């Protein structure tokens, strides 16, 4: 299971915290100082010099304010001007990921490289096995001619000294849909036509060069206004903060949210409707039905495997159902989904019921900046707690479990199959499932391996978070 904690990611979080602090202190100039404060002239630099680091930090701060590198028309525009612009924004329009090009130049095209371990041996297995005649011996060592190399990797398999390694480009490697690639100048670009907004690349890049455009400033702005703001907490919130769910709810109220809803309640309703839909579909002769709660999967279907489209459930996701509940009871409320997911931003953009999407990281930054310690918060009373089944949506297998619960005391022929993580191989399998089936009739698909608890916006180790969730489910 992936873990998203490294120094690059910590820097990204620190920028978010500093931007949120500037918001609370109403010190506009503090925002301009972020790059300088984080990289003082006397301190260390992580790149060639502090000045380049500062430039990168400026773009990170822009992303934290909701702007991409693409939005820069004049390099002189200062961070406080972006901040002022962000304050004027009334709705979210652009959610595309942004690549901070100056942070990204370091990776060479993914390729095979012959390392120092090469003995320049007599056998020359690499040369013999290369189908393109791309290997020469220079100064007693094998060298790959990149012009001829076709990336087949046969030399790597052949070398008895393991002298050949593959040096990947992490963001390209992780993208399940080949949406990231290099342009002529060597910087990575994201093809928005292909991208399913899963966010994996943002966490895989060791330079954190790919950033999401944050909606944090927008939400902070709404919290100051008179309209009620409702937080909708994803089921995967368990284990993402110190303290328990009841304390997290209080912390959100202290931040200024007028009400906090558990999206797990929406998930309970999703499970009820999805079970009914599944029964109906199978009875009418469908081979199988897949889940629809993971928006990255839904995007993948739309953009890459349309042949499976007709098998995807029409039941709205837990977020959509919860947001619908909120709209019914308080039509003028601003709705904010808070979860681990970047793809939810796409779903929210298409829905009129969800106004903003925050990640746990962004919420964390807001709490730090507001000086709210969750463990110091008193426990709120949850009027209508969600059922265990709905709370279980946070992990892979959870949706299946909830559907099974629906049929617990009924005769049924539910045959569940799960896709735990969407990678290139899983996509191919799903594509084939459209014609050949997939060995089951209820198919759960989660883009993130492990489920939403391993989503790109989490703050905890997925293993420990899952353990906490299990403990909670026992007494839900």
């Amino acid at each position, binding site marked *: 299971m992936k873990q998203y*904690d490294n120094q690059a990611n*910590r820097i990204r979080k620190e920028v978010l915290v500093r931007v949120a602090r500037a918001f609370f202190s109403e010190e506009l100039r503090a925002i301009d100082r972020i790059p300088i404060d984080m990289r003082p002239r006397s301190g260390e630099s992580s790149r060639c010099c502090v000045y380049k680091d500062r430039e990168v930090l400026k773009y990170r701060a822009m992303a934290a304010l909701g702007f991409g590198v693409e939005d820069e028309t004049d390099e002189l525009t200062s961070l406080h001007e972006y901040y002022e612009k962000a304050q004027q924004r009334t709705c979210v329009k652009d959610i595309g990921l942004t690549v901070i090009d100056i942070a990204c130049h370091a990776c060479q095209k993914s390729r095979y490289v012959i390392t120092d371990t090469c003995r320049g041996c007599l056998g020359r297995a690499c040369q013999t096995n290369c189908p393109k005649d791309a290997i020469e011996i220079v100064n007693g060592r094998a060298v790959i001619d990149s012009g001829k190399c076709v990336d087949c990797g046969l030399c790597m398999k052949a070398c008895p000294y393991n002298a050949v390694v593959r040096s990947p480009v992490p963001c390209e490697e992780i993208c399940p849909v080949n949406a990231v690639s290099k342009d002529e100048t060597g910087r990575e670009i994201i093809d928005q036509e292909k991208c399913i907004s899963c966010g994996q690349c943002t966490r895989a890049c060791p330079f954190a060069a790919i950033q999401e455009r944050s909606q944090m400033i927008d939400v902070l702005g709404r919290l100051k206004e008179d309209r009620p703001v409702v937080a909708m907490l994803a089921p995967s919130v368990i284990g993402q*903060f110190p303290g328990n769910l009841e304390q997290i709810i209080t912390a959100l109220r202290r931040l200024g949210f007028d009400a906090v809803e558990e999206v797990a309640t929406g998930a309970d309703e999703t499970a009820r409707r999805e079970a009914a839909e599944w029964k109906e579909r199978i009875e009418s002769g469908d081979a199988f039905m897949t889940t629809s709660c993971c928006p990255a999967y839904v995007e993948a279907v739309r953009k890459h495997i349309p042949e499976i489209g007709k098998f995807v459930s029409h039941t709205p996701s837990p977020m959509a159902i919860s947001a619908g509940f909120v709209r019914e009871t308080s039509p003028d409320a601003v709705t904010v989904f808070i979860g681990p997911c970047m793809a939810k931003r796409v779903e929210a953009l298409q829905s009129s019921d969800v106004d903003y999407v925050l990640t746990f990281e962004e919420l964390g930054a807001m709490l730090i900046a507001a000086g709210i310690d*969750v463990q110091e918060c008193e426990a709120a009373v949850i009027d209508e707690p969600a059922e265990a089944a709905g709370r279980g949506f946070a992990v892979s297998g959870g949706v299946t479990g909830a559907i099974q619960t629906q049929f617990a005391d009924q005769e049924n022929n539910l045959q569940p199959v799960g896709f735990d993580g969407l990678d290139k191989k899983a996509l191919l399998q799903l594509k084939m499932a459209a014609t050949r089936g997939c060995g089951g009739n209820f198919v759960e698909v989660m883009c993130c391996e492990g489920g939403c608890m391993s989503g790109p916006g989490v703050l*905890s*180790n997925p293993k420990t978070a899952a353990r906490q969730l299990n403990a909670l489910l026992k007494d839900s």
Partner: protein
Amino acid sequence: MDKIVDVEICTGTTCFVMGAGHLMSLAEELPERLKGSVSIRFARCLGVCSVPDNGRPPFATVNGALIENASVENLVAACDLLLSGEKGMNYETV
């Protein structure tokens, strides 16, 4: 005379968000050589996060000494140093 090193990880909100959330499983991530010689505790806000001079969160203490920007790597290194007086890399050969 087995020595035990005492590691205390701050799980105040600041530290937790900045990375301590990923350190909750430190016990499982310790290298074999350290298992059994490290006692891990989780603390409420250690109170050091409000002073910028203390460094970057997450904070932890190893036998009472403050570690800033705590990570599995630097906590393991600190434990190794205390247990053997050597850096982690050389421990196996000591």
